[in-house]
Structure formats: C-alpha cells, structure tokens
C-alpha cells in the first residue's frame, strides 16, 4: 500500500553532469518498495511545480531505513529537487505502481537500460536471485555514464554503449543484447529506457521467445490511478487494444502486452 508522507533527505550528490543521487529517509518505503516501483514527489511547496514528479526507486537500504532515487535535472521540478539539501523535507507519495517480477525461477537474466531508464534496474539486480546476470546499459555520451560500478558489482557482465562512442561500445544497448541473446539462453529480460529502445528489446525478446518485462514512462497527473492521464496501449483480446495506465497497471508490463504505435 502506498502512503502520503513527509520524508527527510539525508544526502544528495551530483554523480554525473546533471544527474543527482538522493538518499531519503523512510522506513516505510525502504521496507515495502519493490523493484520497478516509483515515488511521486511534490518538488516545492507552492504552485511552481504544481504536479508531482514520478521518480523510480533506485535502491533501498532496509537496515538503514533509507531509499535512493537518481534523477536527471530536466526542467523546473527536477531542478528544484536538485537544489535540495540534506535535512530538507519532501512530500512523497509512494511506493507506487506494480513491480518487476524478480522471482527465483529466473536464473539467467538480462538487464537492459537506457538513459534515465537504468536507475530502477539497479533495484532489480539487488532483488534478483539469478545466477547469470548480464547488464547492457546505453547512454548518450560518456559524461552521462552513471552507476557503472554499482551495476558491475551486481552483474556477471556489464556492457556499456554510448550513442557517440565516447565510452564503451559505440551504438545502442539492444544491439549488444542482440549479439548475446542467441547464445545466452536468458529466461528473463528486464528493460527500461526510451521507447525506441524498449521497442527493439521487446522485438528481440519476441523473436527469441524470451519473457521480457519493460517499464514505461508517461506524463502523469496523479500517479495513483485516479485521473487516467497516464494511458498506454495494451493488447486486449484477439487484435484488440485498450488503454491501461502506467501508474497503476504499470509501470512494468509484459513486453507482449504493449502496443507500440
């Protein structure tokens, strides 16, 4: 169950250009959050960022009663978040949404992330009990590469791609996945990132008949299912479709159920 809380920030650091990691104190969230879930944050008290901003939970420290989020400073809301200091309070709804299935039956997993989509995947690796865990992360350019060590520690292997080749392999994470997918015999792929990436990963998974869970983004009004803003097209019966909602039915969907336009 999600709650409406005031949480205290215990730490904040800029870990790459314009990308911030924030540690937030909350026994409730650290105890209850599951990988893939998010919090919805009121970034200021007034009306300047009126709506809450959804940010994935990147990791939890259960003994320490804290959770971490990582976010890119994009516009007004994340800009205000980036200006917060340890000790500041933030108004949070969470944990929200469904979660990645990290059940023990998944022994050989691939984790594919792009840009700000890599953050929730760290939590997947923390929770997964897979033996083979290959991570494929894509970034626009070397300056935006983040959490490399964190992913490395938790993975059997880590491949990094940058669009401009300034770090790791030049190209896109799904292309590296494509290379490995026929030999690795994955039983689950977890993916989060921009839509074109998710589309490619879903396609690859489909071709190789591998189960694949993807986490979607959509502009949100409420984040808890009441306003119906965050619609996404999902399969409905034979050839049909309907609108599901990212904040409540998602953000994690079986890749087969998503209809990319």
């Amino acid at each position, binding site marked *: 169950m999600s709650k*409406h809380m005031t949480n205290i920030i215990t730490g904040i650091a800029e870990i790459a250009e314009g990308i911030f990691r924030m540690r937030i104190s909350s026994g409730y969230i650290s105890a209850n959050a599951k990988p893939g879930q998010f919090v919805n944050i009121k970034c200021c008290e007034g009306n300047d960022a009126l709506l809450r901003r959804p940010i994935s939970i990147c990791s939890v420290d259960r003994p320490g009663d804290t959770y971490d989020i990582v976010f890119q400073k994009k516009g007004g809301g994340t800009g205000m978040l980036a200006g917060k200091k340890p000790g500041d309070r933030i108004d949070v709804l969470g944990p929200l949404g469904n979660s990645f299935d990290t059940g023990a039956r998944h022994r050989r997993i691939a984790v594919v992330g792009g840009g700000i989509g890599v953050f929730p995947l760290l939590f997947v690796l923390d929770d997964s009990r897979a033996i083979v865990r290959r991570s494929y992360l894509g970034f626009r350019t070397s300056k935006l590469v983040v959490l490399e060590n964190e992913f490395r520690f938790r993975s059997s292997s880590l491949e990094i791609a940058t669009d401009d080749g300034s770090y790791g392999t030049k190209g896109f994470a799904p292309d590296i996945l494509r290379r490995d997918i026929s030999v690795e015999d994955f039983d689950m792929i977890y993916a989060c990132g921009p839509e074109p990436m998710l589309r490619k990963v879903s396609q690859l998974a489909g071709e190789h008949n591998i189960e694949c869970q993807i986490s979607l983004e959509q502009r*949100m009004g409420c984040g808890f299912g009441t306003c119906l803003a965050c619609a996404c097209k999902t399969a409905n019966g034979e050839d049909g479709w309907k609108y599901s909602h990212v904040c409540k039915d998602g953000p994690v969907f079986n890749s087969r159920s998503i209809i990319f336009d």
Partner: protein
Amino acid sequence: MDIDMSVDICGIKLKNPVIAASGTFGFGREHAGFIDINKLGGISVKGLTLKPRMGNRPPRVAETPAGMLNSVGLQNPGVHYFIENELPFLRQHTAAVIANIAGNTIDEYCEMTEILSDADIDAIELNVSCPNVREGCIAFGTTPAGITEITQQVKRYAKKPLIVKLTPNVSSIADTAAAAESAGADAVSLINTLLGMAIDVETRRPVLANNTGGLSGPAVKPVAVRMVYEVSRTVKIPVIGMGGIFCGNDAVEFMLAGADAVMVGTANMIYPDACIKVCMGIEQYVRKLGYSRAADITGSLEMN
C-alpha cells in the same frame, strides 16, 4: 462549540459542503487507500457515458503555470458498468454520490438519466462542458438555447436532482446559468475547465496528443470565483463552486461569493487528502467568525 457543517443542495443532504470534483477522484477507490472517504460531503464520479469510452491518446496532461491541462477525454467504463461494479463500493460509504454524465446526443443524456434515476445515486450532474471530446457535450453548453434544450429534455427523465455543470468558455455564464434554471435544473455547478493549449517548443507540437485540453488548478481560481459570484446573483437554485480550490480559504472565497457547496478537483490529484483539508479549513474559518453553521457564510461577501 460544534459547527454544523451540513448543507442542503436541492434536497441532497451533504454532511459538509466539500465534494470531490468529477474526473479527479475516479470512483473513490484510489483515494480510499489514502483517506477515509466517509469524511467527504459528496463525490462526483468520473464522467460517465452510455457506452464505455477509450478516451484520448496520451499524453493527456500538461503542466502550465499554477495549472494543468487535461485531455483525458472521458475515458470511462460506461454507465452500466458503473452501476454494477463501482456504485456498490461507493454506497458502502456515506458521501453523497453524484453521477456526472456526458453524451454525444441529447438522446444519450436522456437515456443515461433514465437509467441512473433508477440507481442508488443522490444526484445527476449534467456535464455539458467537457472541452475534450469531439462530438456533443460542450456543444450543448455554450449557448443558453443549447442549455435550455438539453436541460428540458433530460429533466423529463430525471427522478433525481439535476445539477447542470457549466462551462466557463462563454461570454456570459450568468446567461447559461439562468437558462439552466428556467429549464428546470435543480442546481448548477461551475466551473468546468477553460480551453487551453500548451506547446512544446522543442518538438514544435502541442504537448497534448489531443492538441488542446482543459485548464484547471489555482490559475483559474479568480475567473471561477468571479463566475460563481455572477451566477449566484442571477439564479435562486443552489450553486456549487469550483476551480482551483486547494485549501480552506480558497473554498471560503467561493462560499462568500455565493457557493452553497464546493468541489475540489485538481488538488485531489496532488494531495490525496485535499478534500479533508479543505473541509477542516472551512470549519476553522466558520468557527473563527463565531458562526454555528457553514451555510451561514454563503453569499456573505460585501462588495466594495
């Protein structure tokens, strides 16, 4: 001293004057996870149509200065599904249930009214002011003649109090309110959203897939308060005011201006406990003034 917070809106007894506005509270289930929805005066449910509706393409929401645009487009499971699957849940609670309805044709409005008149709801709110659907709906709401026609027709089928929800996108909302009153409306509610557009200068496209959307939130409050004032001077039937109410004092502005009850919309999406806070704020205000009933402040604005 206990403040009597109850208000009577055309025969519907509300335990307090705070009603969740349509489209921002779903059918109450999500908010029930955060608050005790028994504490609300009423709930106006997500706009219902005769058949289930998909709604518009996403993105359906855009933030604007102190406001937001939405173009949800009346996504809903249809009136029958509502009665069978959502109403029973709402009826386990004590908040009045207002069925907000929208249609493509007058016949559809009439049919829904007939169906809902036999359901266990407290009132019907005629949404003739949704700017997000192509056919019908707001088309009926922008002229006094349109309001008269639809209200008269629907009224013939209504065995429940009929609230007509007015659009602010008109030259004179007093005229449309007066039309609703003479055509038999039991109350009016206002304002629905102002039609607006936000453009993403990077993509050079409107932010909303539907291009335009309805503006709500604090930004519209001064327009809404003015309209509630104009309407409450014009009609004798009860007036339900809304538009940007986030706290008790916001609600008090509407009540002073003449609202018998208020609806809280956008605030519910940001603060799940918004309705409860608004209600506490009204109570505090009434107590401070030394009144015993919330209804006493309605219309007590003094003009300069």
